[in-house]
């Protein structure tokens, strides 16, 4: 996920991280969540066959 996209999604909820460490850590977790969401979307698309 592009950092600008992430910051825009955060800003839409009033979240404005300032420190680089915060942004980097949020980015890591956000990317992990996006990967989880993609796997779950694929799982659901198969009708729940794992």
């Amino acid at each position: 996920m592009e950092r600008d996209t992430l910051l825009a999604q955060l800003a839409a909820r009033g979240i404005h991280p300032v420190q680089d460490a915060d942004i980097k850590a949020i980015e890591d977790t956000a990317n992990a969540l996006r990967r989880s969401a993609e796997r779950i979307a694929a799982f659901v698309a198969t009708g729940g066959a794992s």
Partner: protein
Amino acid sequence: MSVAEAGLAMRRGTLTSRALVAAHLDRIATRDDRIGAFVFIDAEAALAAADAADAALASGIDHGPLHGIPVAIKDLFDVAGWPVRHGSVCFANRMAEADAPAVARLRAAGAVLIGLVATYELAIVGPGEDGLYPQPRNPWNPDHITGGSSSGAAAAIAAGMVRLALGSDTGGSVRSPAAYCGTVGLKPTNGAIPKSGALPLAPTFDTPGAMARTAAEAGLLHAVLSDTSPTALQDGRLDGVRILCARNWAQAPDADPAALDLMDAAASVLSLAGATVITGDLPPLDLMTDAGAILIHAEGLATHAERLKGDGRPMGRMPYQSMAAGAVLTDEDIANARRAAAVFKAQIDALLVDCDALLTPTTLTTAPRFSEFANGQARWTPMCTLPFNMTGHPALSVPMGFVRGLPMGLQIIGPHDGEAMILRIGSAFEQASDHGAFDAFTLPQSNPARVNRIKEMT
């Protein structure tokens, strides 16, 4: 002295609740400086409650198995007049005005509330370095974490400072610290225990739960918290009980190989106790964890929306970073995760038609070192707990052995409202093994040679 032994002694007149509570306070005074489990102790109120319990028994009023027994409360549940601050600077000056319903049930059952035990900040993630207080040390090795978020409860029990505590479990917060500390934790069926009066995180996942030294004691505490009758745990035999041992979860890529070895050994013990143990697969752990993580982050973001605004301060950095990331989830992501959760729940329910319980490791490694979280760095600690917050099934963690001197836990999952069965299996396993027979302080002092033998067994 077990809860049952203490209760018997009180009823025989050979022990008073005051003496029991005073002994607990003395032990906390001598041990907790090395652990840091308690964040508030109300000795005066505890002794007054003990006196009231003694007076009640003397006048023929008996409130049941917890009458006069000390219980610690996670710093997440309101206790009237206590500084319940959820481990966060956000609540640094907070005083609770009324008892949470779960706490009120403990009082009504005659339990003596002895103090508050630490939580990871806001019961989200840890061990952070910028919460309201330092996180407790693992009594088995102070260089290692306790796990969380019910960190203080597990540490206090493992260190022999209290036998019972009220914890809460949103993704494993009762069971994983119990596993890391060699104690017992019961996440009951979602909805079994009232959760109001505790700080929410993910409301469809949040579950108060009993933490204890033994499964039998967890059963006594759970009965009070859920306003149900205590489970009769029988004689340790499991004849006629069918258990599915989920070896596929213990073989996850990030699992310590010892997790599978210990679970196989536990399965053998349960088989010798009379159970029919079969091996089989659960739905994929990684997919169930994916769905659970999406839902926890979505619900957690909603719960803490106001606190997360701006740069979230004074919230600690670890919970801020974790919860803020939920902003990248879309409505479609959340809907997909709920659909997947329904599928997984149905799959687990189907397995529990033919079996009375499922076995997995509670966590897939022993407790990590504090140094792995230095400078507030979050780290994934692989565990098998989150899926059952999502499906709502009850799950119990009991000690299943030691690896390189640190405990691991066996997770026993039952059907909805099946607490009695998993407590029975857990108790039978305890009776047939000695993994949870000692607290971390007593064992080394009593017989170092035996400690080494027990701690190194795999």
